[in-house]
C-alpha cells in the first residue's frame, strides 16, 4: 500500500463564479497530523468536503488511500472518519443509540458493534454520558461524541473540520488530547483558524489563503523561515556595558547587537544573527570569555501569528520585523 493517504492534484472547486479552491496540490503521509490553516472562507471546508466525497471537484483530482474521490466514492468514504464543522449530531438520540447507528452505517454487525462502541467510548472518554441524550450534553462532550462517531470503524484517516472551535479552554484541551492520542495511530487532517492549536497539535501545516496553498511546512520551520530569529540576552549590570556589547559583536554570525531596555541591575541586548543558525551556545561562551554574568538567554522565533498574517493578507514571508 502506498505511503500516501491523501494525494491532491490541481484540486479546483468553483461555486458559480466564485473560486473556492484553486489548483491545490498536496500530499499527506500515513501517520501525520496535518493542520489546514487559513482565515474563514479560505477554502478549508471545501477541501474537506471534496475529500469526503460530499462535493465533487470542478477540476483536478484527489485520491484517498489510493482511491479516487469521484470514481470510488464508497471506498473513499469507508477509509474516512469525518467530523463536519460545528459537529452536527442527532441531538434527540441517546449517545449509545447514536453510536450504534453510526456503527451500523459503517457496516458493522452484531458483536462488532458493541465492541467498537466500547473502544470508541473509551478512546474519547465518553463513559459517563453514554446513556444520556445528546442534546443534554455540553459542547465539549458533543465534540467527543462526534469524534467517537468518526472513530467507530477505526478508519485510517480522520478528517476533522474545526474540531476545537467554540470550546472553552478546558474543553479544547480535552478534545486536543483526544485528537493527539488518536493521531498516534492514525492519519489526521484537521482544519482550524487557531494558530496555537496548530503549533501544539500538528506535525505539519498547510496554510490556505484565497483558495491557494501559501505554505506547507512544519510549524517550527515555518516560524524559523518567516523571519530571522533573534536572541535576547541579559547580563548582570557590572557597570561595563561597552564590554558586554563588544563581546557579543565578536561572535561569528552576529549581524547586529542592540542595547535594549531591561530590568533594573540588568544589561539587556538584542542579538540579530546574519543567518538562521542557533547562536545560544556561542553567546554563552562569549559571556564566559568576557567574564560576564549571564542572567538570561532566549531565542525568539517569529511566532506563527505574524507569518499567518503575512501569508494570508499579502506580503511575502521573510520580511518579519527584526
Amino acid at each position, binding site marked *: 500500500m502506498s505511503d500516501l493517504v491523501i494525494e491532491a492534484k490541481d484540486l479546483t472547486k468553483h*461555486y458559480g463564479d466564485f473560486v473556492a479552491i484553486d489548483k491545490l496540490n498536496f500530499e499527506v503521509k500515513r501517520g501525520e497530523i496535518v493542520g489546514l490553516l487559513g482565515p474563514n472562507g479560505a477554502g478549508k471546508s471545501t477541501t474537506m*468536503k471534496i475529500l*469526503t*466525497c*460530499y*462535493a*465533487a471537484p470542478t477540476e483536478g483530482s484527489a485520491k484517498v488511500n489510493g482511491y479516487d474521490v469521484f470514481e470510488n466514492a*464508497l*471506498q473513499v*468514504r*469507508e477509509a*474516512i472518519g*469525518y*467530523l*463536519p*464543522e*460545528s459537529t*452536527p*449530531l*442527532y441531538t*434527540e*438520540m441517546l449517545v449509545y*443509540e447514536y453510536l450504534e*447507528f*453510526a456503527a*451500523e*452505517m*459503517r*457496516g458493522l454487525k452484531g458483536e462488532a458493534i458493541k465492541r467498537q462502541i466500547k473502544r470508541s467510548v473509551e478512546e474519547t472518554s465518553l463513559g459517563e454520558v453514554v446513556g444520556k441524550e445528546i442534546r443534554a450534553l455540553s459542547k465539549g462532550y458533543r465534540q467527543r461524541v462526534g469524534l467517537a*462517531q468518526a472513530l467507530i470503524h477505526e478508519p485510517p484517516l480522520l478528517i476533522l473540520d474545526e474540531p476545537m472551535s467554540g470550546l472553552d479552554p478546558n474543553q479544547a484541551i480535552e478534545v486536543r488530547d483526544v485528537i493527539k492520542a488518536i493521531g498516534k495511530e492514525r492519519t489526521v487532517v484537521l482544519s482550524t483558524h487557531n494558530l496555537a492549536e496548530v503549533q501544539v497539535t500538528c506535525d505539519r501545516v498547510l496554510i490556505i489563503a484565497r483558495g491557494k496553498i501559501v505554505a506547507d511546512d512544519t510549524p517550527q520551520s515555518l516560524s524559523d523561515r518567516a523571519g530571522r530569529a533573534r536572541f535576547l540576552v541579559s547580563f548582570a549590570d557590572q557597570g561595563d556595558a561597552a564590554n558586554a556589547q563588544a563581546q557579543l559583536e565578536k561572535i561569528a554570525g552576529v549581524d547586529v547587537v542592540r542595547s535594549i531596555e531591561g530590568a533594573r541591575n540588568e544589561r539587556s541586548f538584542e542579538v540579530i544573527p546574519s543567518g538562521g543558525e542557533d547562536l545560544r551556545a556561542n553567546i554563552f561562551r562569549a559571556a564566559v570569555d568576557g567574564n560576564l554574568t549571564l542572567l538570561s538567554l532566549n531565542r525568539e522565533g517569529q511566532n506563527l501569528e505574524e507569518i499567518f498574517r503575512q501569508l494570508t493578507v499579502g506580503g511575502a514571508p521573510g520580511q518579519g520585523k527584526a
Partner: protein
Amino acid sequence: MTNTLTIAKREFRSYFNGPAAYIVGSLFLLVVAILFWNTFFLEQSASVRNLFALAYGVSVFVAPAITMGLIAEERRNGTLELLITYPVRDAEVVIGKYLGALGLYTVLLALTVPQVFAVGSMGQLDMGAVWAGYLGLFLSGGAILAIGVLASSWTSNQLIALIVALSIGLFFALIGQLLIFLPDGVASIFEWLSFGYHENNLERGVIDTRDVFFFVSVIALCLTLAFRSLESRLWK
C-alpha cells in the same frame, strides 16, 4: 440495502423520540373518528367506505407534516453532510427516509383498525373491500409521502417543505373536482392524474392494476427526483 433499513429505522424511531409521532397520530385519529362516527348512524349500513374516504382526505394534510423535516431539517442542522459521507448511496438515503415516514404512516393506518372492527360488530363487513380500501390508503398516502420527501429535498426550511408538499398534494387531490369545467380531452387527462380518482376505485373494493401502477409510478418518480436533488450538491 442494510443501510436503507438502518436509516429507515433511525427515522422511524426519531418520530417517537420527540412529540411528532404522538401529535400527528392523535390528530389523525381524532379527526377521522369524529367525522366518521358523526354521520355513521345516519347511513343505516355497516359500511367503512366513508372511513376510508375520510382517512384519505386527512392524510393529504398529515403526510406532508410527516415528511417535511426528513431532508430539510437534516440539511439545516448539517447532519445531512455527515449522513451522506457515510459509505451509502444517495438513493439509499432517500429510500431509507421514505420508508421511515411510510412506517409512521402505516402505524396511523393501523390505528384506524379498531374502528373497522367496531363497524364489523354492527353488521357484516365485506373483507375484500376492507383490504382494497387499506391498499388504496396505503398507496395514495405513500404517493403523498413521496411528494413530501421530494419537497423536503428542495429546501433547508421545513415549513417551506410542508407548504410545497401540501400545495402539490392538494392539487392532485382536488383536480378531480374541476373536471366539469374542462373540455373532454383535458378532463380525461386530469381525471387520470387525480389521486382521488384512483383512490376511489380502490376504496370501492376494486383492485385494478392500473390504479396500483399509477401510485407506484408517482412514488418512483418523486423519489428519483429527490435523489437527483440530493445528488445535485456535487455540482453546485
